[in-house]
């Protein structure tokens, strides 16, 4: 069963640095993604339809879904003021309506414990900045997998399941760490 080749993937990019937003947007657009950029995790949550519940923090309203917003992947910087990319990741994975959206984290700092934590908490990939075209090329498989899953209505992704990768060559810019 083929999917519509013309349907563009929509990526939401989150970064507080204007320069990095410009870069990631250009990188994503050269891969034919449709891109929306925001400069904070809070704006990202608002864009995704989450509203602030004063008691519980951010919640997706279960009744009213923001139907016009269709985001296929979220790529976010780690170090941001107020709410980090990791916090954003967790909020997304805790939301019933958003948890199946693949999330990718970017960071300028190579901190193994940080990388591990993000991957364990459900990030698909962790890219070291500056992000390269070769990193962005890794995104399509995650998107195609999500899309075919939606179309075939197979079992939902278990977010805590660690993806096994056949031994891939070590790439300084992105890697999965086995604990």
């Amino acid at each position, binding site marked *: 069963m083929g999917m519509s080749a013309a349907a563009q993937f929509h990526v939401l990019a989150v970064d507080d*640095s*204007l*320069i*990095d937003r*410009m*870069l990631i947007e*250009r*990188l994503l657009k*050269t891969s034919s993604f449709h891109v929306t950029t925001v400069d904070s995790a809070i704006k990202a949550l608002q864009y995704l339809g989450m509203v602030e519940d004063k008691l519980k923090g951010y919640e997706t309203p279960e009744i009213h879904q923001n139907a016009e917003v269709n985001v296929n992947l979220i790529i976010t910087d780690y*170090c941001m003021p107020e709410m980090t990319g990791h916090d954003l990741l967790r909020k997304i994975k805790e939301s019933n309506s958003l948890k199946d959206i693949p999330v990718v984290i970017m960071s*300028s700092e190579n901190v193994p414990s940080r990388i591990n934590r993000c991957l364990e908490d459900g990030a698909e990939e962790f890219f070291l*900045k*500056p992000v*390269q*075209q070769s990193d962005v090329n890794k995104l399509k498989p995650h998107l195609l997998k999500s899309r075919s899953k939606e179309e075939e209505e197979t079992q939902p992704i278990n977010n805590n399941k660690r993806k096994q990768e056949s031994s891939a060559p070590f790439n300084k810019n992105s890697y999965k760490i086995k604990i």
Partner: protein
Amino acid sequence: MDVGQMQRQWLDYTRSLFIEGFLDNQFLQLQQLQDENNPEFVVEVVSLFFDDSERLLKDLNFALDQQGVDFKKVDAHVHQLKGSSSSIGAQRVKNACIAFRNFCEDQNVEACLRCLQQVKQEYCLVKNKLETLFRLEQQIVAAGGSIPMMELGF
């Protein structure tokens, strides 16, 4: 000077910037993201870098001038500058920032002031170099030529 000579001059100048370490591979990545639909991409990003850096250098001056220096704040500014210089391939500025952050950890005001001078110097140098490069590009385009594609295999 004809277009061919200008293009060779541009190539030689760009090569020298890499050899002298002012720019690294990330700058080539920026150039590769530029195309007919985004012909000003490199200039736009680099201009942002200039604005951003000047603001951060002012903030750093201010922060280090205080009676009780807030090293967390100083480190945050340097972290930002390190990030943006890394994103555009300004290697020497990035390296100066890395050294600077080590002294922030040590909470050594004198050393931080020296580092700030170093970062300023590297920033001024790369700014001059890039402005020269962009002028050469404008001349080539004005003469009807196109900017050559740089390969890092020289």
